[in-house]
């Protein structure tokens, strides 16, 4: 029944998907946290920049961003992100685009988390002499993160599925392989089912695990 799978590197394709997901998750978490810090910070220029960034990037279709990284950054400006060959260059560009895009959502999830931290926490932190950065990194963000594990899981699941857009610039991840198989094989419904199942295998544990983590780390007040 699954004969049509022969000759295709299904695991390899999903491995690329997983790599795209994990790297983009890491970079978007870091960049999103920095953006959130800027948005609640005291410097008007940074606040303005972060607000503009979030509003422009989250309202731009991901396909446009990913295609721009290839046609704009790579072909026009010659950005290689340190890669030696085309494959790894486009992989890195895809990670760059996905991270830039997802960071906007991480930032907003985190900002809503920051809003759940009572003002008195920051006041008490300032009152013992902590600097703005210390208040943010030692007191506010740790509590904010704990309250947004659920929303961040949503962002991560969306990111996992969004990696399929990287197929648009020829990154050899799951969706690109699916396209290839659909062209060559007859079992269209089965092919779709196999790939859908593959993504569920990736995302379902993420949701369940982070749901459990969220409950574990919740701050009791």
């Amino acid at each position, binding site marked *: 029944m699954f004969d049509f799978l022969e000759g295709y590197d299904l695991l390899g394709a999903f491995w690329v998907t997983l790599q795209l997901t994990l790297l983009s998750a890491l970079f978007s978490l870091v960049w999103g946290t920095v953006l959130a810090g800027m948005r609640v910070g*005291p410097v008007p220029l940074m606040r303005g920049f972060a607000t503009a960034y979030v509003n422009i990037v989250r309202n731009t279709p991901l396909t446009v961003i990913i295609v721009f990284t290839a046609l704009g950054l790579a072909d026009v400006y010659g950005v290689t992100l340190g890669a030696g060959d085309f494959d790894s260059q486009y992989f890195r560009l895809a990670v760059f685009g996905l991270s830039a895009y997802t960071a906007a959502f991480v930032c907003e999830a985190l900002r809503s988390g920051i809003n759940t931290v009572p003002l*008195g926490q920051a006041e008490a932190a*300032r009152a*013992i002499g902590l600097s703005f950065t210390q208040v943010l990194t030692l007191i506010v963000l740790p509590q904010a993160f704990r309250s947004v594990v659920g929303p961040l899981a949503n962002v991560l699941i969306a990111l996992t599925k969004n990696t399929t857009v990287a197929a648009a610039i020829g990154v050899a991840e799951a969706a690109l392989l699916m396209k290839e198989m659909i062209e060559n094989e007859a079992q269209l419904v089965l092919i779709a089912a196999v790939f859908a199942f593959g993504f569920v295998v990736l995302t379902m544990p993420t949701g369940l695990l982070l749901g459990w983590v969220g409950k574990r780390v919740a*701050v*009791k*007040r």
Partner: protein
Amino acid sequence: MSGVSVTKGPEGAVPATTDLVVLSNVNKHFGALHVLQDIDLTIERGEVVVVIGPSGSGKSTLCRTINRLETIDSGSITIDGRPLPDEGRALARLRADVGMVFQSFNLFAHKTVLENVMLGQLKVRRTDKKTAEEKARGLLDRVGVGSQADKYPAQLSGGQQQRVAIARALAMNPKVMLFDEPTSALDPEMINEVLEVMQQLARDGMTMVVVTHEMGFARSAANRVVFMADGRIVEEATPEEFFSNPRSERAKDFLSKILHH
């Protein structure tokens, strides 16, 4: 004692020896509300000043301006001879020297009691971990919550939390302690345990500014009572004078409402 004029030391960088906190001609507005009006207040080293007054009289705001959690519109505030700096490193350094205890405790909810008391020492004073922990445990014992050191704030009663908050402030070796209605959020049976810690601090010679509705504490621990109403300091006197013989009508009216029922 209060009321006695203080001879200033010789001019120069050395601050006057006795004046620790000086507010002069301080004004603040919240929109149209003139919440602090021409406030002049001098707090001497070792003095316990209790600020009382009806709700909305500006006493909490006054307390919060002293470590600049509230900014002021005009006037000046100096602590130990230095004017309050603008937001930034210098202000953070100054805040480390000014302990603050809040009505709602504000213990760091994601850290244990011990970590709460150690945090400022580690991150602001850069004390090594061992010394910080010893000091924290000592202070927790002193306020009577030593056995709760490894719990999280939410597991403690209000009175215990507030005593931890006092220990957290004391861990910074503050020059002055500000108490912003420290017992107002407590169940009646927990008020005394907090007041006793404060009484002990007062006896040990800590400079304290206490905004409170606890008249008993004002009588027994204060060197001076400052009565505020409608954003002004209406009356300043020793507790004996103030409670037995208030001069202003506003204070008489206030006292009659809270003392007779």
